[in-house]
């Protein structure tokens, strides 16, 4: 009977289904399968899929690779801290360090070109939030995440840390240029 009383029939599994319910379940099930297919299908036909290529790393190893890139491809420096702006050639591996409380270095990429962007965090979890494009990736310490990116619009982007990382979290913001 009522939802707060035991059902009248001992075997509730035999209770009939109203047509409203039956129809809705069928429609909802189809929609659920469509959504599932969409997510799988986007991996085949879509152009925005997050890479899962990951390696274990240490701050020392990752810093060394980043430093090598900075030594080779720095074009200028910015701000009072002289953060290097690095313009690596299209198709190359580019490295971005997230640490308390900055990103290092600043990357300068070319529109329509593809890069292998390596991300890691030196200490705590950080966030890679590319604005205003609004692409958000978690940056986890100990893991080197390789994301293949192809910028489709030129301009000055910002990289905002959007994982809470302590008292100066709000100052952890950097640039990324696309020419």
């Amino acid at each position: 009977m009522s939802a707060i009383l035991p059902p009248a029939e001992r075997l509730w599994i035999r209770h009939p289904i109203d047509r409203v319910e039956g129809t809705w379940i069928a429609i909802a099930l189809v929609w659920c399968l469509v959504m599932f297919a969409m997510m799988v299908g986007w991996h085949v036909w879509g152009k925005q899929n997050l890479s899962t290529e990951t390696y274990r790393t240490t701050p020392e190893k990752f810093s060394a690779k980043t430093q090598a890139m900075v030594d080779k491809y720095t074009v200028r420096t910015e701000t009072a801290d002289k953060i290097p702006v690095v313009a690596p050639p299209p198709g190359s591996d580019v490295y971005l360090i997230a640490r308390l409380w900055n990103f290092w270095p600043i990357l300068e990429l070319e529109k329509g070109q593809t890069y292998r962007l390596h991300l890691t965090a030196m200490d705590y979890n950080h966030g890679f939030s590319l604005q205003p494009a609004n692409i958000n990736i978690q940056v986890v310490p100990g893991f080197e995440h390789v994301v293949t990116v192809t910028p489709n619009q030129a301009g000055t982007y910002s990289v905002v840390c959007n994982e809470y990382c302590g008292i100066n979290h709000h100052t952890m913001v950097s640039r990324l240029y696309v020419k």
Partner: protein
Amino acid sequence: MTTTYRTCPRSGLQFESQAEKLMIANAVTAVVFLLIGGILAIGVVLTRWPAIHWLAADTFYQVLTAHGIDMLIFWIIFFEVAILYFCASTLLRCRIAAPNFAWAAFALMLIGAVMNNVAVFQGGSSVMMTSYVPMMAAPSFYAGLILFAVGALIACFVFFGTLVIAKRDKTYQGSVPLVTFGAITAAIIAVFTITSGAIILIPTFLMSIGWVKEIDALVYRTIWWAFGHSSQQINVAAHISVWYLVAAVAFGAKPMSERVSRVAFLLYILFLQLASAHHLLADPGLSTAWKVVNTSYFMYFAVLASMIHGLTIPGAMEVSQRQKGYTKGLFEWLRKAPWSNPTFSGVFISLIGFGFLGGISGVMMGTEQLNMIIHNTIYVPGHFHATVVIGTTLTFMALTYYLIPVLFRREMILPKLAMWQPYLFGFSMYFFCLVMMGAGTLGVSRRHWDMAFNGAALAYEWPGAAYLLMALVGIGGIAAIAGGAIYIVVTVGSLLLGKRLDSGVTNPSFTAIPRTAPSLAVQTTGSMGFAAPGTFMLAMVFLLAFILYYFINWKYLSTLWGLS
């Protein structure tokens, strides 16, 4: 053990005296944590409102940590323990199993909750609810959570034990009521959840006192979310059970189909646990197949279950209203619903908001690729305030209005104010969630003290619309807090100042639930007809909104940089 059973003259429910005291203790403690969390919410919204930007950064993160834990864990789980005891002891009319253990559970939970709060307010534990390693809090932060979890686990086993007693004493025949069935679902999920919490929080505690050197950051995130997300699934199962309960007490509605509703609960048990993946979609190291299968609850079967409950609950109300003669058109049953009864209006506002705002946004965030445009933006709190505040908290508030005369035996004070409370609280939360999701769509970060990036050399200038939306978040938040304050005033005021009501007849033994005669509908197999056309129409509107918004997000995603 001697105990007594009281039959409430207003509801006909039978309360065993030990169980009743435990329910009161747990529910009152829950409301105290809601009050603390609500006061902290003032600090959160007035800081995120850019023009006010009230608290200093360290205080803000401290307040945000405490707000999250007090609301999401302590308020809700204390209240859920009361609901579990209600669904077992009261609905099955039996004594509660091992009341001493239940009191021990209560004590552990209380000590744990206080210990955790003290740790946060001492400073040095502003690690947010998620406390991702290697960021560390004080040992007592984790110890408090662990004690609380152990207490909650004991409470779950008291609940299971009570079911056994009811079966053994034959207080009912056949199957348990649907609401109890839903509560069993919640308790099973709770056991899984709390175990996951223990697996990850115990080593983290050991790390905080220096016994363990390192915990892998990704392993922590994976297991923590099996606790963090699943604990929200306890809430879903619990508040949906309460929706069925309220449909039964406000309308005398019976479930459209016991089979459909119960199978939907079974889908929760089977698939809801997979959702920890929702939080790891933007993470490195996990395979695409793992993400896709888990984030979709294995082909969205738990979403299917929620869509079923979303239809069957208003459907049951509609069938019951139509039987009372409200048959004109598609919606007379809804227009003539008891809108001035806060128990009903609260549940209905909760149901619509949970589906339209919480449900749809949840599927967006939980879609592997779409997550990239949402992860860690303020869209995320926009979503979970729709599920946890509009869904769970508002439902529990509505249930409280029912329980004040029934369980607490007091006449409600300020009934006019109580009548408006679900509207003020519910609709301002709708607004709050919507503008937060809007700001999140523009990329604004969650858990962020200053969107102006004061002190950063390379600050990013958010678009003006983002500032406007965050100001609206502040306004909506303050309105919702006012709604919450009215709830506290009405409930606490009624408990302290309300007129005492007659307790009803007390008996030394229980009165078994009489066997219900099988209804005609059950004896004939097959369809009952198309009994709830109005609800079906609402469901179609929901589906349309869902489909449109889903593909708008894919369109937005397709304009982004190529990522592979």
